[in-house]
């Protein structure tokens, strides 16, 4: 049994965890919930030996756990699957899985065949075969597959404690289901599981108990059977949230974004239109080509054929800069790799795409910049001690919000959001949805790529479904149900055509 007692941790005087005591029993799934920056990842990192707490103890099976050493934590049987998967880009999935576990080969010799075979066997045992090829290279993996590699790596042997930090934030339903089955198996075999997620539905499916952190302190523990979603939300945010989704405004007739037969290496023949004030959802499974399409429209991936029009004017897309000048904005899927300057402040990050407008004779007007960023950061509830704080030190969800602030500041005509609420807590999700709605009301054409079906359904006026780089169907808000979207997303599989 895992016993945390009185854990506290501050970063530069700002408390991230305050006197937290929780137990987690073998054969139990304990969900850890809380807003962005509540301290969930910090807690797991203490377990992993990555952070040393300022005070407090951790006991595993009545033995005190030495703190601050990843190796010792691992040896004691603790495995953490972190929020940002670590992948070695240049080696295969098999090597990524067994890195640090050389016991698979004979002696020191590296036997690739055997390693690959072992990886096949391992993935099959975990029920992840079919989702991940051991031969694939690290750099070719989608975010979802990286997450699966991280999971497979942690489970090379059976741990005593398994902690998962937002494992499903980049997974689609199929992979998530495989993960849930796996977690249940582990639980039944006596593993103590700590599960961090912002997704209410899966928490209620999976967890036996829910612990809620707010501002670093434990504010409640409930047995899942004896509580309800709204109670957990109230514990998390300290108030009631009613109505996550608001879509009030009817779209204009004026078409802002037009794609004509857009074709790249991975998507083909995509034609669609987004009108002013309209929110169009792009649904599909991982690998359907939605992010690729988003990047193509943004000038990051070259078009093989077709064209993109904004306000009826064809635009020449040689680089993202052309797209931005034409009034398009993109908040990319992978915030750390593709959007953030981790070493720089929230202010620097947020104003990066509007520097030209904030400058006079190339001099950045600092006052105007500060006012703009501060206003938007407050509106999206970015939790940071000040906008001068380095983005690296923010929690995952707040980093995501910083990226959104960048594009809100730019006020584009077309805003493409690729998984805008990945890793964002319920309260902030509601803010982001409201912001998207408000943007639409201001006449922005919004294209949202999301793997969370309830989100696509709740947010979009129209849903375009893709599979294998093609559009397989389109549903209006009235017609769309989870079943119908899924049916289109898996059209090939269902008809057995291919």
């Amino acid at each position, binding site marked *: 049994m895992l016993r945390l007692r009185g854990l506290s941790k501050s970063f530069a005087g700002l408390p991230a965890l305050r006197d937290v005591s929780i137990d987690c029993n073998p054969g139990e799934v304990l969900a850890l919930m809380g807003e962005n920056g509540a301290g969930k990842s910090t807690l797991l990192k203490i377990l992993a030996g990555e952070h040393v707490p300022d005070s407090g103890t951790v006991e595993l099976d009545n033995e005190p756990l030495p703190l601050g050493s990843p190796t010792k934590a691992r040896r004691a049987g603790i495995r953490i699957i972190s929020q940002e998967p670590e992948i070695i880009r240049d080696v295969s999935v098999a090597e990524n899985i067994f890195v640090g576990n050389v016991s698979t080969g004979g002696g020191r010799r590296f036997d690739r065949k055997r390693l690959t075979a072992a990886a096949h066997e391992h993935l099959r045992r975990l029920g992840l075969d079919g989702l991940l090829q051991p031969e694939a290279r690290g750099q070719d993996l989608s975010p979802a597959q990286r997450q699966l590699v991280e999971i497979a790596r942690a489970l090379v042997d059976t741990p005593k404690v398994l902690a998962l930090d937002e494992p499903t934030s980049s997974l689609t339903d199929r992979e998530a289901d495989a993960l849930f089955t796996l977690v249940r198996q582990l639980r039944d075999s006596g593993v103590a599981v700590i599960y961090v997620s912002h997704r209410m539905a899966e928490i209620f499916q999976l967890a036996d108990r829910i612990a809620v952190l707010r501002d670093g302190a434990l504010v409640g523990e409930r047995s899942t059977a004896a509580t309800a979603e709204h109670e957990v939300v109230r514990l998390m945010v300290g108030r009631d949230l009613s109505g996550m989704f608001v879509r009030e405004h009817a779209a204009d007739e004026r078409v802002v974004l037009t794609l004509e037969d857009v074709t790249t290496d991975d998507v083909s023949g995509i034609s669609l239109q987004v009108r002013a004030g309209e929110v169009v959802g792009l649904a599909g499974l991982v690998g359907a080509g939605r992010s690729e399409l988003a990047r193509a429209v943004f000038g*990051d991936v070259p078009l093989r054929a077709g064209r993109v029009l904004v306000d009826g004017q064809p635009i020449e897309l040689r680089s993202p800069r052309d797209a931005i000048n034409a009034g398009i904005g993109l908040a990319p899927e992978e915030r750390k790799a593709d959007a953030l300057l981790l070493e720089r402040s929230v202010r620097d990050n947020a104003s990066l795409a509007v520097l030209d407008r904030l400058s006079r004779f*190339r001099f950045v007007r600092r006052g105007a910049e500060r006012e703009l960023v501060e206003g938007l950061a407050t509106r999206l509830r970015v939790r940071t001690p000040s906008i001068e704080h380095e983005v690296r030190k923010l929690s995952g969800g707040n980093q995501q919000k910083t990226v959104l602030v960048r594009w809100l500041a730019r006020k584009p005509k077309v805003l493409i959001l690729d998984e805008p609420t990945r890793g964002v807590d319920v309260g902030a999700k509601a803010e982001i949805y409201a912001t998207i709605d408000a943007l639409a009301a201001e006449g922005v054409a919004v294209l949202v790529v999301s793997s969370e079906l309830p989100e696509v359904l709740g947010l979009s006026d129209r849903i375009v479904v893709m599979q294998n780089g093609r559009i397989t169907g389109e549903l209006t808000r009235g017609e769309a149900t989870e079943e119908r979207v899924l049916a289109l997303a898996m059209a090939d599989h269902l008809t057995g055509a291919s």
Partner: protein
Amino acid sequence: MTQTQNDQRLDHAAEPGAVSTNGAAARFARLRVPFNQNTSLLIALAVLVTIIGVQAPEFFGSANLRTIGTTIAIAGVLAVAQTIVIIIGGLDISVGSITGLTSVTCAMVFTSAGGPFPGLLSALAAGLACGLVNGLIIVYGRVNPVIATLATLAAYKGIAQLISDGRAQGYVGADPIFIFIARGSIAGIPTLIWVFALIAVAAHVLLKYTDIGRNLYAIGGNDKAARLAGVNLNRYIIAAYCLTGAVAGFAGILLTAKTGSGQPVSGSEGLELYSITAAALGGCAMQGGRGTIPGTVLALVLLGVLENGLNILGVNSFWQNVAKGTLLVAAVVIQQRRSGERRIGLPR
């Protein structure tokens, strides 16, 4: 200190989920002098000056201070340029060679054209051209900056030797303009120092207050993110190398003026390493995204004072090199420890 921490805590708790920039903590954070690289350099400088000054009071003489200033001026100009290239995540090892090449160009054009201004302009133009070639090789040849400028270091040096036949060229020591640059002064401060100071201030303003500077830092911090935010990477990178080349042209002019003739190699060899040393000591991160002109300038002063002080104290120059090396390692180790990076594997 406890008071502040309490303030911060209260502040944090009072407004969950909001940006609390108006809070006491934030106000304090803005007022507080950060104990950063520059502070440690200042402390080191103070210690050094005290030690040297106690043993050799003539150190503080205005003639000696002028000597320090004029010695660091040429290398200083290059270090300022180097800082900019390092901030975008690059490196320019060829700056010393460009200085030599532009020095020869300057003197030879001066001799054949018979006037100082064609000489000065040709030096800047040659520097710019060298920088442009560097930038083009790096961006369009997809060559790692270290390798690319290592290659042009050799090539530019070769060109300088070829056109000069390996000897000092021309004699500018009689021209009033060059005399003014080498030995003149404005308001009691030598022209060499003025040139260095103006270049440093211009670079500082560029980096700190303009959108160009922000974009340069962004490129060094995360080039992919910068591109997706609309920064034209290629143009910025090439421009940064052009700027470095042109600034090295200034260094070439200063060198020509100071020595009285065009020096293909002897006056500028080793300056590339000196400039990198100063930038690193001043807090530039080699992977890019971090570094400031004030930091580099402080580091230059520190290096200059160290060299000068040891000279005055009669320490032999071999020991001076050892001292410089030790200083650099100590400074960078302190910097890394302060950044709180865990001591595992290769440093970032």
